[in-house]
């Protein structure tokens, strides 16, 4: 059973603000998802390789050749705040 504390923790990890009204909506949905996972868990998977990727692709690589980057102005254009070629963000203090 998922608790309020679990949801609050997940919300904080995901940086999502959750009101009590939101919780009321998402709690039952998450319960259902977890219930489904429980069903899957009941299957015997002994001897079955874990799936690393759903497609049968392996070793998709490219040569180490330089390609075009974006112009600086284009790189910055969607940022809410920029200056001197940098993205500006709230002060981060460690």
């Amino acid at each position, binding site marked *: 059973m998922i608790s309020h504390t679990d949801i609050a923790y997940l919300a904080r990890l995901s940086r999502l603000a959750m009101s009590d009204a939101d919780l009321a909506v998402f709690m039952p949905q998450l319960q259902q998802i977890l219930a489904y996972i429980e069903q899957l868990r009941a299957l015997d998977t002994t001897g079955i390789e874990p799936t690393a990727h759903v497609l049968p692709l392996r070793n998709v690589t490219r040569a180490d050749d330089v390609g075009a980057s974006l112009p600086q102005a284009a790189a910055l254009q969607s940022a809410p705040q920029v200056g001197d070629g940098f993205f500006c963000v709230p002060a981060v*203090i460690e």
Partner: protein
Amino acid sequence: MAQYEAVIGLEVHVQLNTATKLFCRCRNHFGDPPNTNVCPVCLGLPGALPVVNQAAVAHAVKTGLLLNCTIAAFSKFDRKHYFYPDLPKAYQISQYDLPVCRAGWLEILLNEQPRRIGITRVHMEEDAGKLMHDEGGGGSVVDLNRTGTPLLEIVSEPELHSPDAAYAYLTTLKQLISYLGVSDCNMEEGSLRCDANVSVRPVGVTTLGTKVEIKNMNSFKGVHKALSYEIERQTKAVSAGQAIVQETRLFDTVQEKTVSMRSKEEAHDYRYFPDPDLAPMTFSAAQVEAVRATLPELPRARKERFAAQFALSDYDATLLTSERAMAEYFEATVQAGASGKAAANWIANNLLTALNAAHLTLAQCRITPAQLADMIALVESNAISSTNAKNDVFPVMFATGASPQAIVDEKGLRQVSDTTQIDAWVRAALEQNPAVMAALTSGKAKAAGTLVGAVMRLSQGKANPALVNARIAELTRAYLPPPPEPA
């Protein structure tokens, strides 16, 4: 009181020196204007898809083999989630449970004894961007040029027991990786970074004490100092019956001590899962063996070969193989005709001193190995004196990159070995020094020695010194009184 021992494990990140980033074709280059080596992939724009750089994968496999690791038959990338302004996707592409390399070892020398330190794993991951704090206190700024730079994280087993051992591990690792040529390994520029996990326990106990992670050490000496401080701090605390708090501490490079980060101890919950945008990688035994065949000759083997092949002292052989570039410079000089001994002497004594004084690396050296070999040949054929070579030819070669022959011709330094000319100088020197003449006639044969300086001055340093000595001995004999008749 119980004796305590330290238990140290190191996590080293090295930036790979590929031309492009790990998952996009942006330039992997340090020092460009901010946010100019960026594209939708490394900016984390929606819909952009990463594709693995095969050179970075090859570097990872090479490094794994260098560290005697097992290369995984099957490896994958995973997402590691956290929020920070230098991480635009809000996850870092890393490797969780199936790294490219695992279970290796690195041999270090500790008190001249070889010791094997276990390597837990080597995995590939992408670097984050650079976050800088505005001095004015306004806010922080972000440059994403570094985002997506290929990194290898090399994790050691907790098998190091002193700051000296950690230091030896790091210097050996740096030397080997530089030899491989996959990274510049420059800790000051951030292409090599090190974090340490440290705990203490009473000697004889085999379980581990509570460990503390130390970050922010920006030189090998800094690692040594931080570990020394931290081991002493923990030993004192444990001896006094206090518990060690599991935490991350930062090394304060000014006060030379570790300080608790005091960040909220929110247990790391990175919610790793396989990255669905990247296909897994496989490595066959044949592929691994093909890579193994491309590994360069490593320092120890090269040192032993140099000592044997060129009859070098252990000291010279060690020095000349300490960096791959130097070993190659030395071999190229020998290949261009110099004897191993002469090449070793000139490189160890003159070239390295000049490079250090000028703060240059061997890659920036203007003297080519062939030119150095030519200069050595001029000395050995007596065309120039070794003093002239040292004082007049070598410094000009070093400063201008000119060929030794051109400098010798331009400065007129060609050594004079013509007996007639040298005899003329010796006679002139005798005439200029009546006191020497008087000493000779009174039987003081040693007085002739003072003529050497006068002859060298008259010849402007060009007279062949061996020949000068011989001609002085010959020409002054006439002035000496005859030896007494045997009775």
